[in-house]
């Protein structure tokens, strides 16, 4: 059942449009994310970044256009089905299971890798116990990798903001996704922690993870991304490497206002 | 000819009952809007309205004065209830408030029982126990009073929500608590206000329906349940929905028991209710987020 990957593009967005009550948030947008790259989407406030992100993650339904993941259309699939295909995400405003422990949060991330059904769980057949122990070990290893092992037993809601962001990333990775969607991973973090987050993302990518991120922190985007897509008013105004995008006149005007171009 | 008369007869009875349900549903909706909770105490306020009016009629000798005083008193009970039970909650989410109103309903019911007694009470209609005959159709005068008073109350409520600052604040808080708090609306006081209005509406319903049904301490659950059904039928949290839902439920019951069977009267009403909710889950006039599946 494996769809042949003819292009090496993991994610293909074609003519994607989203309108809310007359406002066109994303307008006939097309772009690709190659397997193994870090791609960033930037743009001024209201450029349509969040809407685009939500359409890819399955929270907002597009008005028109197609989203293909690994060659197959996913734009009509609900969020959980996209996760099943191999897309995991983090949230800008954190969607942590606050009342569950830090370890359990990551274990929920292993959900798709488990086989226990409601019936086998009720009966607690031996394989369920084995699966639990395996899930716990994997989750614990992830927490150790991200420096949260000491907090494993605490309620996730008691973590500091920066730790919650790291936890959400660990939880998303627990899914073993093929595409990682990061919604403003550096937002709200102090300099040092943002840099550490960037380093983590780079490490992940070095191990082969494809990343699509929406971010405001220019330093992070410029240093991290292989490819940058710049949006304004829901349209693409530039796409390319950090160098190319930085020099693009439309990008300058969109970010600095008209007077910068006039001057 | 006779069937047409019967039809009108059933219609007028249905509208009369429906108007009462609409008032109860309105109270239910106001609290739902401000807290997200189901208010189980709503029906107890209906009973209180009827029983306190009955008590006061003896003292005041004026029905109008007795009704107004009773409704105001029960309104104060509503305000007190919120201050004593909902306001002290540390984490006032919808579930906890719902459970608190269950406790409130038990306490209110036993209070009514202990103070006002277990015997059903009643009083004559506002124009005596007269019936008007219109073209062969006999309509209780009290039914007309019910319809007129309900209409008047709805007009006042509409003006309150649309015209007054307090009403607008209440609507704003219901739409978005956080945003309302940011622009300076005291969200806590809007919850208080909603309990007051809900008690007022419930008590009024009780005061005007008692001449037809008598009032007894144990009717609260039934009234609350009918009001809740009407609210759900019309669309939770919607004020026009309360009116539409109340009338629809009243007519459904009247026609259901007339044409099919009075044994299944409630089942018919609920079956239609559930059927409508299957087709339009947010009610006739309501809007709700449907989870994308």
């Amino acid at each position: 059942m494996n769809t042949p990957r003819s292009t090496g593009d993991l994610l293909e967005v074609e003519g994607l449009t989203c309108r809310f009550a007359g406002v066109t948030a994303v307008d006939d947008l097309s772009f690709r994310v190659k397997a193994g790259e870090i791609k960033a989407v930037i743009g001024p406030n209201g450029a349509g970044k969040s809407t685009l992100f939500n359409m890819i993650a399955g929270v907002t339904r597009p008005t028109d256009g197609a989203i293909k993941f690994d060659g197959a259309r996913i734009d009509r699939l609900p969020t959980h089905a996209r996760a099943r295909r191999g897309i995991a995400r983090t949230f800008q405003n954190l969607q942590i299971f606050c009342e569950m422990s830090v370890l359990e949060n990551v274990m929920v991330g292993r959900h798709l890798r488990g086989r226990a059904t409601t019936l086998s769980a009720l009966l607690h057949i031996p394989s369920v116990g084995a699966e639990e122990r395996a899930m716990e070990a994997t989750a614990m290893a992830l927490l150790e990798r991200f420096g949260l092992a000491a907090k494993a037993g605490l309620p996730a809601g008691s973590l500091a903001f920066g730790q919650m962001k790291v936890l959400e990333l660990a939880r998303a990775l627990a899914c073993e996704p093929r595409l990682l969607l990061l919604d403003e991973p550096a937002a709200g973090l102090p300099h040092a922690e943002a840099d550490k987050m960037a380093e983590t993302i780079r490490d992940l990518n070095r191990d082969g993870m494809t990343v699509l991120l929406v971010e405001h922190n220019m330093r992070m985007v410029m240093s991290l991304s292989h490819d940058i897509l710049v949006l304004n008013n829901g349209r693409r105004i530039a796409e390319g490497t950090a160098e190319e995008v930085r020099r693009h006149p439309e990008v300058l005007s969109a970010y600095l206002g008209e007077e910068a171009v006039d001057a | 000819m006779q069937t047409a008369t019967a039809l009108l007869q059933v219609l007028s009875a249905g509208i009369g009952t429906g108007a009462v349900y609409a008032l109860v549903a309105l109270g239910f909706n106001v609290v739902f809007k401000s807290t997200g909770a189901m208010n189980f105490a709503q029906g107890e306020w209906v009973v209180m309205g009827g029983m306190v009016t009955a008590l006061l009629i003896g003292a005041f000798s004026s029905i109008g004065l007795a009704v107004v005083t009773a409704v105001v008193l029960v309104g104060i009970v509503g305000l007190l209830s919120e201050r004593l039970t909902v306001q002290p909650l540390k984490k006032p989410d919808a579930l906890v408030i719902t459970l608190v109103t269950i406790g409130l309903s038990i306490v209110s019911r036993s209070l009514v029982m202990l103070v006002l007694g277990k015997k059903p009470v009643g009083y004559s209609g506002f124009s005596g126990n007269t019936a008007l005959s219109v073209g062969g159709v006999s309509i209780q005068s009290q039914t007309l009073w019910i319809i007129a008073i309900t209409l008047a109350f709805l007009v006042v409520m509409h003006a309150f929500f649309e015209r007054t600052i307090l009403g607008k604040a209440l609507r704003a808080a219901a739409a978005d608590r956080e945003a309302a708090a940011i622009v300076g609306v005291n969200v806590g006081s809007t919850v208080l206000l909603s309990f007051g209005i809900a008690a007022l509406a419930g008590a009024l319903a009780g005061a005007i329906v008692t001449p037809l049904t008598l009032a007894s301490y144990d009717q609260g659950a039934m009234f609350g349940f009918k009001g809740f059904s009407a609210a759900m039928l019309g669309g939770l949290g919607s004020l026009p929905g309360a009116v539409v839902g109340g009338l629809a439920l009243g007519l459904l019951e009247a026609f259901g028991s007339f044409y099919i069977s009075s044994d299944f009267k409630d089942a018919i009403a609920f079956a239609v209710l559930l059927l409508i909710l299957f087709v339009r889950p947010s009610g006739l006039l309501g809007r709700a987020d449907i989870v994308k599946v």
Partner: protein
Amino acid sequence: MASIEAKTGPMTHSRLPRRGLSRHARLALVWLALAAVPFVVPNAYWISLANLALINLVLIASLNLLMGYGGQISLAHAGFFGLGAYASGILNVRYGLPPWAGLPAAAVVAGLGALLIGIPALRLRGHYLAMATLGWNAILVVFFTQLVGLTGGPNGLLGVAPFSIFGHALDTEAKAFPLAWAVAFLVMLAISNLLASRIGRSIRAVATNELGAQSLGIDSFRTKLAVFVLSAGMAGIAGSLYVHINQYASPETFGIAPSIMLLVMVAIGGAGTFYGPMLGALIYTAVPQILLDYEDAELMLFGLGLLVVLILFPRGLAGIPAALAGLVRRRRA
């Protein structure tokens, strides 16, 4: 000071430390203790109360699974209890099936009753399940009352046979106790097992943060539906126990008022705590016995007690130790 630092320092274990007994051992110990009940109570009336308490435990624990862990409110739990009781009882009285066949049938019928209302109601955000189930229970009661040919109507379903083991009828309270004891144990064990699996975690995850759960591949609609149907199925099992132990059922046992009270008992015991329902079941069984004798003022006291618990201990009676511990910890910090 140094000792406190040492205590709160970073853990070096890669596994979480597990204190005390395993969940299975703890549950087994509690049930062994409960086995002594028939030997220590003075008479058969008390054993009948113990049986009722165990049936109530199945009801409250299953509702707690839905409400405390699944974050959904059902106001038809007594209705599903009734569906189970009538399904099992009617199969026995009208069709001559043995109670042992009625027990699984009760679970299936109650589960189907939940499926029917759950599919439309759970597609909506917010507490629509609560609303829809309230109406559903009302309809069920009308059918229990009006379908006289099947249910016996207001007079109740008479002549229900007791369970029997190898031709030996469990027709006294003392003989029925081991059965209620064993079934309640199995239900508690099943709930405990479920909660300790990926399914249990997904149920809690959906209740805590639906969006987050969906992003990890959890189908929130199916998860909610499954836990609702499961919880109703367990109520159906309780119904079968009830009808064959009492050898009778009548509609008022399965109305909206008991549904509301079950909800209250989950909250009083402690929603989302495993042993909270045992406290809830104890209170639910005891209260009517006390209220039977003194009618008036006690109702008021009960209502006030409920309000006090809800306002002061939002996590229920089972949450009091944790609340006190939290208080102590805050003092020290």
